[in-house]
């Protein structure tokens, strides 16, 4: 098929984010599947040093660099504006984005603008009977779906974002890339969005990143008044209490207890996930944990696929028993 694959790299303050490396690994994989060539795209301001580093480290046909003061701060119109022109000129077949909040903020607009096909949140890419099949989570991550571009849409640019953990950054191919400048059309990238301030979402009074043991509560606990079993287990273990997003949104715990992509990233020796189904947004915040225990009533909950030990059952029966057993073991 001989395709042209673009990997849109994301940098902040002159540093590449980790998921961009993983997206390069995905791009290399897609290039092998489609007999394609991979090219990188880097946008920002004052990114010359970073661009040289990447061009000296990653095996790509080209590295397109838009380095311009107008791109100093990310705006959806700025990024989509530069890429729209670039896509129209060079007609890449695939554009892979790291599945970050920043990519998700602008690449759906870009896909609509270039009349492309949009595939957000990809966990795996494969080739089946001559077409590329994308695997992505649905139903809150409880199931995965396989999707492909419909025959009558083949030939349009496919814009996909790659989930964290789907590929290993170490598999980004080593080598070099030829740098080429990407035009920044000042009149097409003006943004109505004005950036006023950036601030910490919550004053993190609790630093969960240093905790040795964490008991984390999820929606399955069922209510603020039912949280006592969580606190009892944590007290017995000398553990910190954490939570997935729904618990925080429902105010069963304060926001500085949130673990996941919009909360804290933790790496305790022991992580006990209670009533947490295991949406990807939560998993990215706790995947560095040592031993993971999951308690959930649903045997199909994705949390069990990242856990070392699991108990399928009613957490309101299992947790008191567990607290008792730990008290007993500690004598």
């Amino acid at each position: 098929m001989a395709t042209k694959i673009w990997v849109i790299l994301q940098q902040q303050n002159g540093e590449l984010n980790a998921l961009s490396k993983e997206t390069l690994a995905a791009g290399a994989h897609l290039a092998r599947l489609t007999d394609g060539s991979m090219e990188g795209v880097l946008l920002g301001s004052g990114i010359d040093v970073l661009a040289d580093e990447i061009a000296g480290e990653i095996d790509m046909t080209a590295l397109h660099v838009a380095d311009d003061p107008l791109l100093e701060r990310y705006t959806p119109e700025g990024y989509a504006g530069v890429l729209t022109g670039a896509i129209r000129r060079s007609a890449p077949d695939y554009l892979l984005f790291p599945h970050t909040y920043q990519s998700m903020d602008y690449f759906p607009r870009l896909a609509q603008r270039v009349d492309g096909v949009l595939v957000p949140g990809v966990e795996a890419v494969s080739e089946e009977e001559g077409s590329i099949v994308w695997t992505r989570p649905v139903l809150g991550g409880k199931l995965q779906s396989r999707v492909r571009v419909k025959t009558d849409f083949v030939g349009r640019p496919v814009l996909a974002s790659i989930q964290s953990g789907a590929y290993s950054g170490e598999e980004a191919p080593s080598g070099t890339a030829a740098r080429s400048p990407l035009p920044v059309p000042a009149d097409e990238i003006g943004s109505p969005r004005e950036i006023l301030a950036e601030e910490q979402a919550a004053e993190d009074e609790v630093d969960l990143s240093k905790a040795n043991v964490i008991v984390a509560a999820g929606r399955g606990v069922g209510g603020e008044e039912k949280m006592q079993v969580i606190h009892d287990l944590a007290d017995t273990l000398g553990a910190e209490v954490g939570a997935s997003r729904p618990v925080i949104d429902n105010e069963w715990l304060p926001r500085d207890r949130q673990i996941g992509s919009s909360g804290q990233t933790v790496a305790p020796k022991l992580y006990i996930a209670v009533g947490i189904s295991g949406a990807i947004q939560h998993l990215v915040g706790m995947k560095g944990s040592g031993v993971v225990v999951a308690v959930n009533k649903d045997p199909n909950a994705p949390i069990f696929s990242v856990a070392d030990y699991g108990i399928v059952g009613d957490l309101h029966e299992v947790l008191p028993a567990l607290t008792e057993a730990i008290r007993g073991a500690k004598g």
Partner: protein
Amino acid sequence: MKIAVCIKQVPDTEARLRVGPDGRWIEEEDLPFIINENDEFALEEAISWAEETDGEVTVFTLGPPRATEALRKALALGAAEAVHLEDRSFQDGDAISTGRALAAAISRGDFDLVFTGSQTDDLGFGATGSVLAEVLGWPHAWLVMGVELDDGEEALQVVREMEGGMNQRIRVPLPAVIEVQAGINHPRYASLRGIMKAKRKPIETPSPSDLGLDAQAVGAAGAGLELLSVSFPPSSEGAELIEGEPEEAAAALVEKLEKEARVL
């Protein structure tokens, strides 16, 4: 202010899900359906904005006949009227074909502001609101955790989530599409009076041609993506499941954590 809100009715993912007979989607029969969680917060945001600005809310949904229930709930909560893209040709699209259809429906009204949720709990594209904004040619903000009026009625100040627990405060001129996150407010409950009044409020069901759209450009026909199958993730190399009554299982787990994993 004249406010539009886009909501979707989705399966309750807390229910026990099963893969349907054709393997392409889940079995929907007997499944409870609810308003998508983020969209409930969008609805609350829309209604309270309308109250504060002496405005009015029109609620939009794209979905099969069962989605009328979600619209009735929105009307009971305080929306003034509803638009239901119910025609068969609108259904089973992707984020792009759905965003285009909603944009066509919304562009018929003279709206100042569109609210919707950042992501749905079914297909989870997280993109429909942004596509809608692009078609309308309006600015958008995604993952919004706070909205205030900036000077006069010309612009909003919006707090959007960024990576790593950071928030960004931005100024967005109106009209705009605001895609909210769960947790932005406290959704209200419907009153009995609201429920009674909702029964008399109008629900319009325009066809693609009413919106000036080709039936081939919306829904499944207008979607670039085709869903091949859904399945449960392989229950993998993952967890060693510990069986038994709660007491037995707890005791066995504690022993493993002590002796095998050595973390107690």
